[in-house]
Every structure is written in C-alpha cells, then in structure tokens.
C-alpha cells in the first residue's frame, strides 16, 4: 500500500538489520523479516531517499549485509564491535543521536540468540512505544502514525501511535524486492568503531545444532482392562450433533445462522 498524504519529507527512518541464515541450507543471506523492514523503510522514504538509514551492529565485512544494499541502498551504516559484545547500548546511543522517528526491526533474528528482545530493550532504554508484529505503516500525519498490526489467522488491527516509535516487522509485511548484485557491491559501508561491554552471560551458554524435538505421545492412562480395551478399540463417536431432517429450509437456515452468531464468526 502506498502511503498517502504523508509528512514524509522530513521523516527519519532507521532500519536495523541483522545477518540472516537460510533455514534449510544454513547459507548466509539477508534475514527475511529484516529485509521486509528495509522494504517498508524504502516505501516510506520513497520521496526522501536520505530519510532512510540502514544500521547494523557487528562485523562490516559480513557478506550477508551486501544483499540488503542490493535492494537499492546507497550506504549501510555499521557499528563495528566485537562479536561477543552486547549491541543494545551502542545502538541506543546511535538512535538517540540520529534523531530517528521510526525504527524498524525484524521480530526475531535468524542468527545468534534470536530471542527478539532487542526492540523491546531499545524501547525501554529510549522510553519509546513499541509496536510488535507490524504488517504495514499506512500513514504518518502530524506526528501520529497509523499502523496495521498482523494478528493470527490473517487478521489485522489498526493502531495509532505517536512518533518516535519502534516497530518489529512481521512476515505478513510486503515481501522484499529483489537484491541486485552490482549495486550491492557498489554500496558504501560507513563504519563507526564503537566500544561495547562484552556479553558475559552468553559466554556460559552451550550452543549446538538444534535437536529434533520429541513428539508428544498419546498416553492412555486407563486403570482397568475394560478401559484399556475401550481406548484401543473404540471409534470416535459423533458427539450427538443436532440433525435437522424434517424441518423447513427456513428453520434449518435459521439454526445455522444462530450457531454462526454464537460462535462469533458472523460479524
């Protein structure tokens, strides 16, 4: 959806990106949700290309970062820090300095801890509101953004939130445009070396390739032989649903409508 009647000319959008990992092959790529966040940022900053800043905290030589640049970015800003360092504090400082209005991130990273806590910690640090699982930013008017939030079962909820805010972008957001190789190589990497505290808690963790989770077994807790026999042989019987055979079609339709209203699907 193209944002309409915006005050986007002087809006400052920051998209935080991380290095993605393909779920099957494990190859380094642009992360799915983060690339959607970049896409949304590009859409919002269509009139003002300088208004979008793509920010990464980590290693600037990471090849995965170039694939974000291939979406049409002139530069990617990188806060260079140690891989074992905690990125929250330098990112928070950077955001405060840059005067961002909207900060876009993914919901969960595809590499590292992937707890999805970064946007929340930044919001807590900066005192900004956070909107989780955003599908679209519809408009920005007089410092208030109208945001569509993705709900389960494909539903959407409209929210209004005052700038500045942080939004985590759901997979329901518009898909990212293709990444072109040439522009990706030509894009500039603006590197700032920052000092950050080492994440000591994480050093004590063991990380391994994910094991397959055991499936939950259906345990039959029958006390008597008769119950065990019944559990092994019984067919699931109908719950004694109501059968309307002789009624007129009007009555049948009425009963169906009543049930639909009771279940709350007829809105």
């Amino acid at each position, binding site marked *: 959806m193209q944002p309409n009647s915006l005050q986007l000319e002087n809006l400052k959008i920051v998209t935080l990106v991380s290095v993605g990992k393909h779920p099957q092959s494990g190859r380094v790529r642009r992360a799915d949700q983060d690339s959607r966040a970049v896409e949304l940022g590009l859409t919002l900053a269509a009139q003002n290309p300088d208004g979008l800043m793509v920010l990464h905290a980590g290693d600037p030589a990471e090849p995965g970062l170039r694939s974000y640049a291939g979406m049409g970015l002139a530069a990617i800003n990188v806060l260079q820090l140690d891989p074992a360092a905690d990125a929250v504090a330098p990112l928070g400082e950077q955001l405060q300095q840059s005067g961002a209005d909207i900060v876009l991130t993914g919901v969960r990273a595809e590499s590292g801890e992937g707890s999805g806590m970064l946007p929340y910690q930044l919001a807590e640090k900066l005192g900004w509101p956070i909107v989780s699982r955003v599908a679209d930013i519809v408009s920005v008017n007089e410092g208030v953004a109208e945001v569509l939030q993705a709900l389960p079962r494909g539903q959407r909820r409209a929210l209004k939130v005052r700038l500045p805010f942080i939004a985590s972008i759901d997979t329901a957001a518009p898909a990212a445009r293709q990444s072109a190789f040439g522009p990706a190589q030509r894009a500039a990497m603006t590197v700032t070396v920052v000092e950050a505290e080492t994440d000591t808690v994480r050093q004590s963790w063991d990380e391994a390739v*994910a094991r397959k989770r055991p499936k939950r077994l259906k345990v039959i807790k029958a006390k008597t032989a008769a119950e065990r026999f019944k559990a092994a042989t019984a067919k699931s019987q109908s719950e004694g649903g109501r059968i309307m055979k002789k009624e007129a079609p009007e009555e049948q339709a009425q009963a169906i409508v009543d049930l639909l209203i009771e279940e709350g699907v007829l809105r």
Partner: protein
Amino acid sequence: MSSHDVLDIVRRDPRAEWIARNRLHPLHGTLVSDATAEVRGPSGLLRKYPHRVGFIGPNGIKRIDRLKGNAAASGKGRRSAAQEVQLPLHQVENPDFYIVVVADMVGGRLTGHDKDVIGQAHKLAAGIEGSGAILAVCFGPSKEEHFDTAGVDRLLLLDDAIYDDYCPEQKLAALVQVDTEYQPTHWLFPDSVNGGTDLGSRLAARLHERPAAQAWQVDHQTTVCRGAGGTMDITRATPRLLLLAEECADQIDETRHEALPVTLTAVPTVVAQLQNQGPVAVDPNAVALAEAEFILSAGNGIHDWEQFHQAASVLGATEGASRVAVDDGFMPRFRQVGATGTWVTARVYLAVGISGAIQHMQGIGQCDKVIAINTDAGCDMVKRASLSAIGDSEVILGELIKQVQAFRAQQSVEGDQDAA
C-alpha cells in the same frame, strides 16, 4: 391271576414324570430327589448335577449366583465407578514461593499452549524446595470453567473493562504490580502469536531480565531453548522469565487444584501510547486456507456455483472445496481441503454437499464446530457435524443468504440508532 398281575403292574404317572423331566416346572423341586445331598460317583468323586445349580430368574432364564447373594453390594460399587472420578485435590495452603503463568486466554478460554505452560510451572515447582503455588494471571472476561483441573492453584482474574481491548501497556503495569506484590520465583509466558511473546518481552525489558525464548526443555537448573531462528539449541541456566514453546511439558490431568481467586491491591492506570483503532476488514479469500477462521466448503453436492460464491462473500467466509469439486474444475487446487490439500484449523467449518471421505475428514480434524448441509443423513460428515441440515443445498443456501443479509441489515440499522 388277574389280581396278582394287577399288583405287579407299575402305575406310571405321566404328569409326575413330565414334571420331573421339566426343570422349569414350579413343582419340579418336590418330585426330584433332595438337591442338597452330596452325590458320589463310583470312583468316589463328588458329582454335581448341573441342572440343579442356580435358580430360574423372573424372565424364565436360569441364573447362577456365584457371588452367594453379595451381588447387590458389588453392583452398586460398579455403578459408582462408572460415574465421574473425583481427582485428588492438590492444596497449597501457605505457599513458600509463587510461579506466575500469564495465560493467552484466546476467546476467554485457556488454550492448549496455556495448559502446557501450567504443566511446566508445576514441573518447575516440584524441583524447587518448599511448597510453591502456581498463580495464573488472566486478562479480560473469562469463559473458562476448568481452571482447577488445568492446574491453577491461585487465580488472578483481571477482568476490568480497561483490559478488554488491546492494551499491552496497561497489562504490563498490572504485571509489574504482580511482580512487586508476589515476587514470583519464575515468570512463564506462552511463546505465541496470541500476545504471550509480546507481553513477556515487554515485562522482561521492564524487569531487566534476560528471558529464554522458545524454551522447550526446562527444569529448575537448566533450560534448553531454540535460538537463531530455530536452528540452534542453547543450553543455559534457567532464567527467571521464560517464553515457552508449545508442548514444553505435559498438561496436568491427574490432580485437581484449588484455583483460589486472589486480587491485586491497586494497579496504576497507564496512559496508552498505542491507541487501538479496532480490527480491519480483511478479504476472507486473501487469508491462507490453513489459518482461516471460518471456511465455507463445497463438494459434489453443489450445482449452482454462482450461488456458492455469493454465499461465501455474504457470510464473509474463506472458500474451500473437496477433491471432487477441484478435480471437476470448479475450484482451484489451492482451495482443496483434506489430506492431499490443506489441513485446515478453522474454528467453524461449513460443509455444503460434502459427504466426508476419510481424507477430507483428516483435513478438518482440528476444526471445532462443523456444520453440514447434505441430502444424505447417514454420511460421515453428518456424524462429525455438531449441526446438520438435511435437504437440498441450493434451497438451504438460498435461505441462508437471505437470513444473513437480513441480519446484516438489522445490524446496520441498530448501529445507526446507536450512533444517533
């Protein structure tokens, strides 16, 4: 001669013989020899006369009472065993510590995920010294009736009007209040899209805790959680706040719990930075079939396809189809419901003209309410359905469209009146 002969003649009483032969005759007992006498066979073996065992029951059938008259008492016992079993009550009178579970309560009821998390809470409490109580925090109006069998020791039901809408900031304030009042050992949230992840992450940021997300193997010392988009297992010390994956632990099913209501002293009212503008109308056919909430599905019994599409748009339902309808070219392949198509999770599934092949029934296994419209009252779909209308689908669908349109018209009139 004649008199001698007369004396020698054995007079037979055919009636008595008949009675003696007929074990069912009421006088049979008076004519046969004493039943209680012990009879020994030629080898000294005790012989039993099987015809004399037992008695004739009221309906003429012989009954053998091997329980020696104790049948009445044991019969009573069996009947009571068949009645509902009262599970043993698990009581925590003075809890040494609390473990708080914040339930999603989708539609006002505990979800399966919520119950898994409560089961995990009990597993955690068992590993910690002292007696712990599981405190469930539920927001919004509750329709749940079985908090006790789900394993809730203490229940904090926050059903003020301010929690009805989407209000993560207000809920967060309430949870912070719970933290100061109860100082729980652990905070457990279901890691779900229904709000558990969002609320848990907000609380973790506020309390400066480092949560374990997608935790799936948890005890009081170590936690295994998924990281890096589900491709890594992180083994770490169990943190105070956990976002638990589905099926992290077994649900409680062998005990009953008190579910004692508790209250909070006061919750500050927060000025919401996120203003809820309400749900947005979505095109039901744009929703993926697998996650649609309400599906109108067509099968071989549909002849008027125009009417079917009209019914789907009037009802606001996502369209589905059986294999036959797809094979015949009336519906696209991605609309097929069943084992070879999509496994749906709809809450309400309205099947029109589908008799219910086993592959189709597998596909709708997770649906809550199934409504069938069919001409055949004996088909499998009618057996599965909670409401079935037997008759011509065209007529019933036509009526349905009319009534729903009338309902919509009435609603909009009421809405106008409210607005006025």
